[in-house]
């Protein structure tokens, strides 16, 4: 009898928890639903939850866990997977990363459209990376993003003779996230293949730095309905919890905002973000944009010179980016600590609804200080 009562109580508790869980889940945003769903599917091994890693003498290939596409997932909303990785924990040798690629495939190992790639980010662990080279003044100076590939720019190579130095037993962090702007009537799984090319041959070191558009917003105007009622070059943020910043004037800014239908032009002064202490030579820029971006420019306002003008190609018959060309130059261009730099973004939202936007540039400068360090290191090792 007591057992029967206990059994009934347990069932009631389970029903209450289950109902509460379902209500909680259905009240989450699309992004958070994807996070919860993916974690549960991976934790209970309903879909492949493992990362696979293959190292050859030229590249490291990482195969992501399976990610379930069961809905429309705009930028930053899709199922994603994260992992910490080493090239070879047992090998402390100095190497150089030279190229990066991400591609999408189905479970039959067949390459599919890159429309299912939102972004693939690799971070270095700054305490470890800068610590090993004793470059302590670089720690906490900027977000430790090594590279970001995204829809429209799924592979990049550094200019010949340049690379990012790392040790075989150094730890990195990778995130890869799915995207689905168009397929509404299917449920399927995708995986991402990420390839990182490397060499042991000594190269010229590159130093990454990220700049991105931040636009001011009014905390009292956060609804889509306010979009026609905001100041020029300001925005309605997608969210206020993440990617929100404050400038010296006390303004609140967002790095992920909504764009209205039709054409718009946004500008952002990035001199402070760059914080150039010396004259640096820029060799590579990888842009990160969302669909409906049309043109993305880095301009030296002091000389009125355009350093990089990215003309974006959007898909014609569906939402998505076909091509966002990178900047790559062996000769490089100089950037100066006393110059003012600006990002200019033109968007053209040809859809019949409000869309979201982010606009970043991942810059790579020649790293003079690291060149001396690597040269001395290789002389004695």
């Amino acid at each position, binding site marked *: 009898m007591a057992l029967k009562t206990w059994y009934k109580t347990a069932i009631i508790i389970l029903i209450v928890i289950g109902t509460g869980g379902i209500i909680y889940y259905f009240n989450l945003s699309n992004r958070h639903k994807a996070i919860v769903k993916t974690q549960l599917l991976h*934790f209970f091994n309903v879909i492949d939850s493992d990362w696979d890693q293959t190292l050859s003498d030229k590249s490291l290939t990482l195969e992501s866990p399976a990610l379930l596409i069961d809905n429309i997932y705009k930028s930053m909303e899709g199922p994603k997977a*994260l*992992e*910490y990785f080493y090239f070879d*924990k*047992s090998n*402390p040798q100095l190497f150089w990363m030279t190229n990066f690629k991400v591609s999408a495939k189905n479970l039959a190992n067949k390459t599919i459209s890159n429309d299912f790639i939102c972004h693939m980010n690799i971070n270095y*662990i*700054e*305490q*470890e990376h*800068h*610590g*090993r*080279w*004793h470059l*302590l*003044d670089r*720690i*906490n100076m900027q977000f430790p993003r090594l590279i970001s590939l995204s829809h429209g720019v799924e592979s990049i190579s550094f200019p010949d003779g340049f690379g990012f130095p790392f040790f075989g*037993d150094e*730890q990195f*962090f990778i995130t890869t996230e799915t995207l689905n702007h168009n397929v509404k009537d299917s449920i399927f799984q995708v995986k991402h293949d990420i390839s990182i090319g490397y060499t042991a041959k000594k190269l010229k070191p590159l130093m990454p730095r990220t700049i991105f558009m931040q636009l001011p917003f009014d905390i009292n105007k956060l609804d889509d309905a306010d979009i026609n009622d905001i100041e020029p070059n300001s925005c309605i943020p997608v969210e206020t919890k993440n990617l929100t910043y404050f400038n010296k004037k006390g303004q609140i800014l967002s790095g992920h905002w909504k764009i209205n239908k039709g054409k718009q032009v946004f500008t952002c002064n990035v001199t402070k973000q760059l914080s150039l202490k010396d004259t640096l030579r820029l060799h590579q820029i990888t842009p990160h944009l969302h669909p409906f971006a049309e043109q993305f420019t880095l301009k030296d306002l002091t000389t009125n010179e355009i350093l990089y003008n990215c003309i974006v190609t959007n898909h014609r018959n569906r939402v998505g980016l076909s091509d966002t060309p990178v900047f790559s130059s062996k000769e490089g261009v100089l950037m100066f600590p006393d110059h003012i730099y600006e990002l200019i973004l033109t968007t053209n939202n040809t859809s019949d609804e409000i869309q979201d936007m982010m606009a970043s540039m991942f810059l790579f400068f020649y790293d003079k200080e690291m060149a001396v*360090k690597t*040269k*001395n*290191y*290789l*002389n*004695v*090792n």
Partner: protein
Amino acid sequence: MLIRSFLICMVSLNLSCTSKTQLPVLSNYIDNNGKKVNYRIENFEFKNQLNLKVTEKNTKEKVYVANFFFTRCPSICPKMKTALTGIAHTYKDIDDFIILSFSIDPKNDSVPILEAYANSTGIPHLKWHFLNGNKNQLDHVAKLFRTSFEPLNYGIDFYHSSFAALVDKNQEIRGFYNLLDQQSITKLMEAIDFLLDN
């Protein structure tokens, strides 16, 4: 509490599936001549929440996690505190394991304030030391742990890292782990187990 127990349970399940791992020694650096210089985490002296002196003698033959925080921190410290409380609970019966949390706001984080903060974790004082020291000492350990911090908003806030360092029984750093990331916390606990067993 329920969520925390669930997370600890998930971490334990993950741990049971994970093999032992190698951990490179990270308390070294390449000097200006290209030579590798090894060092240990030593020559520091702080006061803990009980006003007791804490030096490298307290960490001798112990595995420990070290992080930087301040009690008024509105952003990342509460999440770091939750993560470290979970870890401290997991290793509460392991005498060879401790946690050191260095305050980067020693002017405000006096011994009584640190004591109240420590009490709020429910962790025994000798398991988790909250430390107050002078600027020189703080700069010294920040350098050893490869981190830095800078005041923001006229000293009301600080920009600092969410990474904690894991130190082995030889006082050498064996890894840096992000206390805001569950996957990194799982890896930290795997590494603690490895160092306690080896």
